[in-house]
């Protein structure tokens, strides 16, 4: 009989020997980890290590070929629609529609996630106020500066109050001040109980995570708090930890 994972309400993500094979190529090779509610979990790895494939499985967009995973309490192999309903997602490459206005983007995404018109309206007012965006409400998203856009995109990704939000390189190319404001929004979201799963190529941002995993050749090679990882690898920064681990990679990125 297939072993089932016990659902635990404090664990928002559970992966057990999660695997994805494309032919003979093991993009993700038996990774296991758990993410606690309200945690900021950094998911690091070199290009081609298997991060994107793993993230796609956790978002219900790709079915694992082996192992098990629960996200927000739902099985990523069999309950993908329920998984999608209970998560938020944002990446640098795709976030909002440039040719829709700020309020139209919010209404679109709120509607997709099944929020009522009343709910959307009330929350939009609140959000515009919190972000100090009131004068931008009727502007096309394409006309906003990138930093603005990324902050809005993050707020939209958690607009439906998901249990966990997946952020795929959310701050690439953003100026240093906005990048830090963005992280302050992340802290604020976690203080409201939202779990954050984030990939980044900025190693200083890895330090802001509660725990960090580093993927090498499809496997998780290290997983701990930044402080413990630095101790374990006798390093001064997460950049040094990453350099030590990623240099072990044997496979040419796929």
């Amino acid at each position: 009989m297939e072993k089932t994972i016990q659902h635990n309400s404090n664990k928002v993500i559970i992966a057990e020997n999660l695997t994805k094979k494309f032919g003979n190529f093991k993009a993700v090779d038996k990774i296991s980890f758990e993410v606690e509610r309200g945690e900021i979990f950094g998911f690091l790895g070199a290009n081609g290590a298997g991060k994107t494939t793993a993230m796609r499985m956790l978002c219900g967009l790709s079915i694992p070929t082996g192992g098990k995973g629960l996200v927000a309490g739902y099985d990523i192999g069999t309950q993908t629609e329920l998984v999608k309903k209970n998560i938020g997602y944002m990446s640098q490459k795709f976030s909002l529609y440039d040719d829709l206005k700020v309020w139209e983007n919010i209404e679109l995404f709120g509607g997709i996630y099944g929020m009522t018109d009343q709910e959307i309206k009330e929350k939009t007012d609140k959000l515009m106020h919190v972000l100090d965006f009131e004068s931008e409400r009727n502007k096309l998203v394409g006309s906003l500066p990138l930093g603005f856009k990324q902050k809005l995109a993050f707020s939209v990704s958690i607009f439906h109050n998901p249990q966990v939000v997946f952020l795929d390189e959310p701050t690439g190319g953003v100026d240093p001040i906005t990048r830090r404001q963005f992280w302050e929004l992340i802290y604020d979201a976690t203080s409201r109980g939202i779990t954050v799963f984030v990939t980044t190529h900025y190693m200083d941002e890895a330090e802001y995570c509660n725990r960090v995993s580093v993927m090498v050749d499809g496997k998780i090679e290290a997983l701990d708090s930044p402080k413990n990882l630095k101790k374990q690898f006798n390093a001064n920064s997460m950049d040094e930890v990453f350099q030590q681990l990623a240099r072990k990679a044997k496979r040419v990125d796929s």
Partner: protein
Amino acid sequence: MDKKNIQSESAISCKSINKKYDTIEALKGVNFEVDRGEIFGIIGPDGAGKTTLFRILTTLILADSGTASVDGFDVVTDYKEIRKRVGYMPGKFSLYQDLTVEENLNFFATVFNTTIEENYELIKDIYQQIEPFKNRRAGKLSGGMKQKLALSCALIHKPSVLFLDEPTTGVDPVSRKEFWGMLKNLKTQGITILVSTPYMDEASLCDRIALIQNGQFLKIDTPKNIVSQYENKLWAVQSDNMYKLLNDLRANELTSNCFAFGDKHHVSVSSEQLSINSLKEILDKSGHTNIEIREIEPTIEDCFMQLSQK
């Protein structure tokens, strides 16, 4: 024979370059010179005007006003000469996805009336890493391999000036280090390199840098000089509760500004009234534990933030 005495001029020269798109001022009076054989970095966030500047210098678009020259040739009147002499790697992967690695390289060599064999020495170190995949279509390559192929194609005609527009964006820290190693090698061959990046930590790998924001250069100098010109003292501060620490430090009237930097906060202090010990006492009183404060040398990112807030 060359039309000009190329030894006596800078590799790139820009005077009062302006460019507008509708109402958006992409470049506002940009001036700079790049010496021959220099690695010159244009450092700034997305939307600062980096790509517009690269397109003007590679003769793909025209500036609204101002003059610019590359390798001694004017970007407007001598654009054909410039195109023969420069290599350009755009930010967006622009090779033929349905041609193989080798076919792409061959194509670019042929366009510039040369062959892979003729300039193989120049690209050898880079191309050898992707040569095992030379029959694979470019569209099927990984990010890192695409980057190496694009660089090989930009180099195959032995350009005198190489333009690299955000070659390391979205690339992991290990591959980024490797890429900068390749640039160092190219420099020894006498090629001038103009490279843009949003990663401030790459600034120290350039001979000189220009910090750019909103279409304007904030500063042009060597990374070392920019760091030494930082105004105020800079302290790195840690305690057990970093989020509360950030808010407490910002609330203090004697600090100019405070930003998170990895596992520490960087606090800029202009006031002579505040000493490390007095700040320690203040934080101790607001309940912080395991407080550590020490004076540090600013990073380029600290300098960028200070300059951009002026």
